[in-house]
């Protein structure tokens, strides 16, 4: 264990730490961030009212929209000169959300990722290939700092270039692979095609995250890559990867709850749910300086277990993500909202766009996104060439908004399903 003392703390002591930290973060948010002061005031709650963890329910929730509305830096609780890094993720309408980190936040992040890696069984003797994208996306740099802190040998290869990935994996004797599950499965195919004998690879642990995946996909990746596949969880709004991570027992993700306080709520009534019940995961950051968040609604569905794990950790465990409460899709690690597609269609003159997003996983396990758009007056033309121009234009606009490649298919009017009120905008054919 990276931090054995904290990771095996008895529940009572953990609650004490959390209570003190909660009181402090609530006060700091109230004093430093106008949005929180207004939200608390209009909710009729004051930092003085927060005396124990049970008082958490008195606080208002924070949604992704709140982060978007205060884009880029208006939710920061630290002065700008103390911010040493900014990461960003996509928002619901194409506008991203930005999250800042102070030196202490970067240190905290590295600590949580080091804990995660140690939890997964990675040690300073390991060589870790980080095939998450480096850049604004938190995956690459998040894993990087944690792996260095742990003392492992880091290969910061980032995503893409599968042939080179496979070559270096063999040449360097890489033991640990960190990437999205779909990219892991894709690499497995590439390794098979390379003709390199299986025994030339030294992989033993895979750190997979940023994307939902099924148990069957896990088993397939494990047998193809010949490693133990570990699920890591995190989100930019809270930190990035390292909010929670599995151990080799693979029975839920250990939440680093001394820094991130989890709750499960009923997404409709917003009431907290009892232990073991499935609901929406909500996080409050307890220690982050630059961008603390109070009761952030992740829209991810999960449940919590408080009994200690066979690995010895007493940290609360969350079940792997079971789904979403909204219609967000995660494609190749990128958040995709139907509203982003709608905005593009409106911009090309489609007044009442009918469309559908279909996510599928190809034979090579890469996630594909097909966008079906019903033909409308604005898009139709008697000439094939002009229709194709429209199709290409829509595809390029969507790709530039989402940052991933997509397929656009024009379909006949009234052929996409319409349900009462809200249309069935999203079909996920991946086995999750």
């Amino acid at each position, binding site marked *: 264990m990276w931090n054995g003392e904290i990771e095996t703390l008895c529940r009572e002591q953990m609650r004490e730490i959390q209570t003190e930290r909660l009181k402090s973060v609530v006060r700091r948010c109230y004093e430093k961030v106008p949005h929180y002061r207004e939200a608390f005031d209009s909710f009729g709650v004051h930092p003085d009212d927060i005396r124990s963890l049970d008082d958490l329910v008195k606080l208002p929730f924070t949604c992704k929209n709140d982060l978007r509305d205060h884009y880029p830096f208006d939710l920061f609780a630290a002065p700008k000169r103390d911010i040493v890094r900014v990461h960003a993720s996509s928002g619901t309408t194409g506008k991203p959300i930005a999250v800042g980190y102070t030196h202490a936040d970067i240190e905290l992040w590295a600590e949580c990722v080091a804990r995660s890696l140690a939890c997964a069984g990675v040690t300073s003797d390991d060589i870790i290939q980080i095939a998450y994208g480096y850049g604004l996306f938190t995956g690459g740099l998040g894993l990087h700092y944690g792996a260095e802190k742990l003392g492992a040998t880091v290969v910061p290869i980032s995503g893409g270039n599968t042939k080179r990935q496979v070559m270096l994996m063999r040449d360097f004797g890489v033991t640990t692979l960190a990437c999205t599950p779909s990219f892991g499965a894709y690499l497995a195919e590439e390794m098979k095609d390379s003709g390199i004998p299986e025994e030339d690879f030294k992989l033993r642990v895979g750190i997979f995250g940023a994307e939902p995946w099924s148990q069957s996909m896990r088993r397939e990746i494990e047998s193809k890559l010949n490693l133990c596949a570990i699920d890591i969880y995190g989100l930019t709004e809270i930190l990035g990867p390292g909010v929670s991570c599995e151990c080799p027992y693979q029975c839920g993700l250990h939440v680093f709850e001394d820094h991130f306080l989890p709750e499960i709520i009923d997404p409709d009534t917003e009431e907290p749910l009892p232990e073991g019940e499935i609901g929406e995961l909500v996080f409050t950051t307890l220690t982050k300086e630059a961008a603390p968040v109070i009761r952030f609604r992740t829209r991810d569905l999960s449940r919590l277990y408080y009994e200690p794990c066979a690995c010895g950790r007493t940290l609360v465990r969350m079940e792997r993500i079971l789904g979403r409460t909204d219609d967000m899709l995660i494609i190749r690690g990128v958040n995709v909202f139907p509203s982003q597609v709608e905005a593009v269609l409106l911009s090309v003159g489609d007044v009442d766009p009918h469309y559908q997003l279909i996510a599928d996983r190809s034979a090579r396990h890469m996630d594909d996104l097909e966008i079906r758009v019903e033909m409308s007056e604005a898009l*139709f033309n008697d000439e094939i060439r002009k229709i194709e121009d429209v199709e290409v234009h829509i595809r390029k606009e969507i790709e530039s908004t989402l940052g991933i490649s997509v397929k656009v298919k*024009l379909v006949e009017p009234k052929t996409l399903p319409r349900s009462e009120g809200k249309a069935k905008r999203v079909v996920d054919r991946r086995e999750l």
Partner: protein
Amino acid sequence: MKVKQVSIFLENRQGRLAAVTKALGSNEINIRAFSVADTADFGVVRLIVNDPNRACDILRANGFMVTMTDVLAVEVPDKPGGLAYILEILQKARLNIEYLYAFVEKRSDNALVIFRLEDIDTALKVFEENNVSLAPSQEVYQL
């Protein structure tokens, strides 16, 4: 004289073209000429019918995406070099053709060819200057 052509968007799926012809047939719309242009995923069916306005209404009511376009029905001498002669006139006038297709039946000794041109008004003038005869729309619809 311009002729109204009905164009329909169809997905490349079984039975779609049949659905169009069935909707028109059961409403007494007669198809005079047609062509299909397609890609891997979709196609556009272009029709010359006896009553283009009513055909559009019927097709829209049946859920099809339809548009109407102006085309020219050119009388082309039904002999070797007949079409070449017409195309040469257009080329000299630097008029671009988007597409063309022939009628299934012919009238008198001339074949009828439907032309969709980039600049239909200039084309009308050019044809007139070169004594190329165009079939009047009412006649085309009733062929």
